[in-house]
């Protein structure tokens, strides 16, 4: 069984965790779709702290002796999944950035060449007006 004082601490920690997520979301410092995993992790943790019998049952199934160790395993599991999701997001962004950089460079090339043509045209037309003035 989880000791009562530990459960109270954990419940407070989880409430604090949700408030933090909420603040981040309100400030738009977190994209909601990336937060779903965090929220899910918090809900599952909270569930197990409020109903420790379920946690104990799960732990016995897995062969873990202390309930606290069970919570650790759970935590680490969530962290690994969240990290993987992050790596996946970074990788997708890398592909997008790569495409953007390439498009930007090709656009810059076209712009550079267009500017050169305009410059040439302008210097020619300048020459024409000059002779007209004469």
């Amino acid at each position, binding site marked *: 069984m989880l000791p009562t004082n530990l459960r109270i601490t954990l419940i407070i920690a989880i409430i604090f965790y949700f408030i933090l997520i909420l603040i981040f979301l309100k400030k738009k410092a977190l994209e909601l779709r990336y937060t779903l995993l965090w929220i899910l992790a918090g809900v599952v943790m909270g569930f197990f702290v409020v109903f420790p019998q379920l946690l104990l049952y799960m732990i016995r199934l897995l062969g873990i002796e202390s309930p606290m160790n069970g919570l650790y395993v759970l935590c680490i599991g969530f962290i690994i999944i969240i990290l993987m999701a992050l790596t996946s997001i970074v990788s997708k962004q890398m592909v997008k950035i*790569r495409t953007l*950089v*390439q498009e*930007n*460079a*090709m656009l*810059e*090339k076209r712009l550079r060449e267009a500017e050169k043509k305009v410059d040439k045209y302008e210097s020619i037309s300048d020459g024409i007006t000059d002779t007209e003035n004469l």
Partner: protein
Amino acid sequence: MESKKPLIIIPAYKEEANIEFVADNIINNYPQYDYIIVNDGSKDNTAKICRERNYNFCDLPINLGIGGAVQTGYKYAERNGYDIAVQIDGDGQHDVSQLEKVIAPIKNGEADIVIGSRFITKAGFQSSKARRAGIKFLSGLIHICTGKKVFDVTSGYRAVNSRFIHIYAENYPNDYPEPEALVVAAINGGKVKEVPIIMNERKSGTSSIRAWKSVYYMIKVTLAIIICRISLGIRRQ
């Protein structure tokens, strides 16, 4: 038959010492080829030299690595309707005089991709023993995974036809792309041919594969090839 000249793609990262030599050589001695220099976000004078000398170049605002730079070249080739694209290194190791040999099999339809290989005739600049052993290993791995025997799998001297210009413009590997690009070619059913070329020693600067990176290189490329092979298996089902 050829509507356009072949395009030479020259990726350049910190090549201020070599780029002038490479580009001027093509402009003055090989007017039968077009070229595009892709400055891979180098902070040295590579871009400045290109601008001053009025070279045909793309300037990537940040460094993407050789794969991203070469892919920019393929995208450029695709948009401008080139039928043949040849990638060479920006450091002057690859002799443009050998280019006709490399594009010949594409011109007469023998191959989709041609690799200029150092190892077939063993002439010209070779590389260190460890590197050759690594290349041999990768070559064997690619042979097992794709059934294609290529000796010089890391050679950056390669020519492709319009079909593979499109494929590589869409999908070109990232970090150390040469061996992986071969697997991409195999997945897409490309005919790969290797022709012997003679390579010069680097004019100056260091090769992009440094000693302390080579272990990472081997692991990464091996993994990439195997994963490519697995996804090929899925595609076939």
